[in-house]
């Protein structure tokens, strides 16, 4: 009864209810009906995405260009304004969604949102994404891991701004698409405050100290995702970049970050939301991340360490998670729209069968390139499904 009231309350507010509050048989029935209807008519973005999530074949493959700060080009917004003013950021994301299109709107500002609130000094360049000032790392020495204290989330300016952005986008997009939140995993946040190189060495030499800091950070990230849940997004992506060959060994990642991202994932699920994982590293550890977070979706830029081909990926993981990817960033940067569409076509052919797939770039659409190839992605989803 509680669930039904909650669902109706969300619908009344013009937003998607938490999907985990809906009994799976009901979702499956909905997806099956949409799949049948999709054979004769176009589905809405919501129907399309939900059908794909339940591993049923929608009318066409859902698509998202993961257009974030790249959409500043439409509104003429500066990088610093996009990063620091949630209403301007909402205008940018809305413009990207309405001008280019897509079935999902994935909200990412930059990877320093959480670290900045923990006191990391930042650069906000005019022509590039915000990033930490690594000359002034928040974690200067190993002892600083234990000195790190949880911050007052109510005063965490950048995270609060992100929550405002989520709330605004849920309202602006309504039932037209699925809007997703985002959180950088605790190791990622630490890498912004220590520098990845030193952090990696510390993970080997001082794992207990690193884990202590992860614990502190996670206590705040839990509040962060809770606030995003309350803002009305139906799914949140956890970025676990270092669960890949670009980061730690699988065993070390599972020991150090695994328990903390599990906790974050549980909070998201407890709120009835879907859990996504975003990891644009090479040879990422699908198996370890699924064990830790039990995600519904994995956004990826490269094949996992245990799959040599996309076909193998689909066979091994296609029934466990919805795959979201994985058009290469370099191709978007220098490839022609025709080349991008050709890449999309081959990915759709292999990964799109029987649902469980969303066409997308492997990472955020490159912010400073023309939007032509974002349109190519959308066009490919329409043409080749």
């Amino acid at each position, binding site marked *: 009864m509680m669930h039904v009231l909650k669902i109706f309350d969300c619908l009344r507010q013009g937003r998607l209810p938490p999907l985990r509050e809906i009994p799976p048989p009901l979702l499956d029935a909905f997806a099956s009906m949409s799949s049948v209807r999709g054979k004769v008519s176009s589905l809405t973005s919501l129907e399309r995405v939900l059908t794909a999530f339940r591993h049923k074949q929608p009318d066409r493959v859902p698509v998202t260009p993961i257009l974030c700060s790249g959409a500043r080009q439409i509104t003429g917004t500066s990088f610093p304004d996009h990063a620091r003013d949630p209403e301007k950021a909402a205008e940018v994301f809305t413009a990207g969604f309405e001008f280019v299109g897509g079935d999902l709107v994935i909200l990412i500002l930059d990877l320093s949102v959480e670290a900045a609130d923990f006191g990391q000094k930042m*650069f906000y*360049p005019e*022509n*590039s*994404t915000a*990033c*930490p*000032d*690594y000359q002034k790392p928040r974690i200067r020495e190993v002892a600083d891991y234990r000195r790190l204290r949880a911050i007052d989330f109510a005063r965490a300016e950048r995270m609060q701004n992100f929550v405002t952005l989520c709330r605004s986008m849920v309202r602006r997009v309504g039932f037209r698409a699925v809007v997703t939140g985002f959180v950088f995993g605790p190791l990622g946040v630490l890498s912004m405050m220590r*520098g*990845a*190189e030193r952090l*990696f*060495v510390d*993970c*080997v*030499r001082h794992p207990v100290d690193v884990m202590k800091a992860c614990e502190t950070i996670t206590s705040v990230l839990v509040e962060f995702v809770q606030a995003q849940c309350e803002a009305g997004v139906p799914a949140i992506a956890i970025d676990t970049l270092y669960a890949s*060959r*670009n*980061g*730690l*060994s699988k065993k*070390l990642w599972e020991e150090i970050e695994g328990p903390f991202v599990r906790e974050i994932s549980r909070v998201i699920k407890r709120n009835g939301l879907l859990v996504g994982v975003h990891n*644009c590293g*090479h*040879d990422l550890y699908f198996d370890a991340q699924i064990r830790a977070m039990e995600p519904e979706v994995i956004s990826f830029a490269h094949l996992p*360490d245990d799959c040599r081909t996309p076909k193998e990926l689909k066979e091994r993981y296609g029934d466990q998670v919805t795959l979201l990817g994985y058009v*290469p*960033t*370099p*191709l978007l*940067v*220098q*490839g022609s729209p025709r080349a991008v569409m050709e890449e999309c076509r081959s990915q759709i052919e292999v990964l799109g069968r029987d649902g469980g797939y969303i066409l997308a770039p492997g990472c955020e659409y*490159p*912010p*400073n*390139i023309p939007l032509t190839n974002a349109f190519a992605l959308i066009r490919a989803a329409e043409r080749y499904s």
Partner: protein
Amino acid sequence: MSRKDILQQLQEGMLSCWSSERLNKSLRAALLAGVPVEDVMGALGHGVEKARAEFKQGKRSIPEIIISVDLYREAVRRVSPKARKGRDSPKKVGVVIGVVEGDVHDMGKNLVAGVLEAAGYALFDLGRDVPRDVFLESLVKTGSPLLALSGMMSTTLENMRDVVRWTRKLSPVTGIMVGGAALDRELARSLGADGYAESAAGVPEEARRVLAAMSRRSPRRV
């Protein structure tokens, strides 16, 4: 312990995440046993090379390579001035390396520099967020035949293209290698680079290939 065993132990130390203390103890023991400094450095360099090869095969992770490179550099700092002199010998091939302007992510660059150093190159590391003219000045000043550019962000690719263009204009025989998360071989080619490596693991081979191509004065693109 025989000289061979000492060198073997040093090499293995590069693969075992030794502590600084453990490294220094073994270095002292090796030098006291009369092992030539060049042989000591050779063994350590082989250790880094082995770590790199095993990373390439998926048997080692990035933190282990970083630690190997750190240990190697610490050994270089600690061995005798004679060894340092040898290290700066003009026989070594120079490489100017840096992260292009606008980008502050230098882990990949540091790894590549360490791996090349252990492979016997003389590194001129300009750091991160390096303006174009600093690269050009350093190439002129050091006479290095190889330039290695790193960039992790797609937003700074135009700066990388600019450095490549000007290097080509001012020093056509300089080999240019690029790498970073936003790149692949195709994009490297379109930027005008001669070489590309997906990770530090493949850099020494690619450097050799680029230098061989440049020495024939027929710059071959990637």
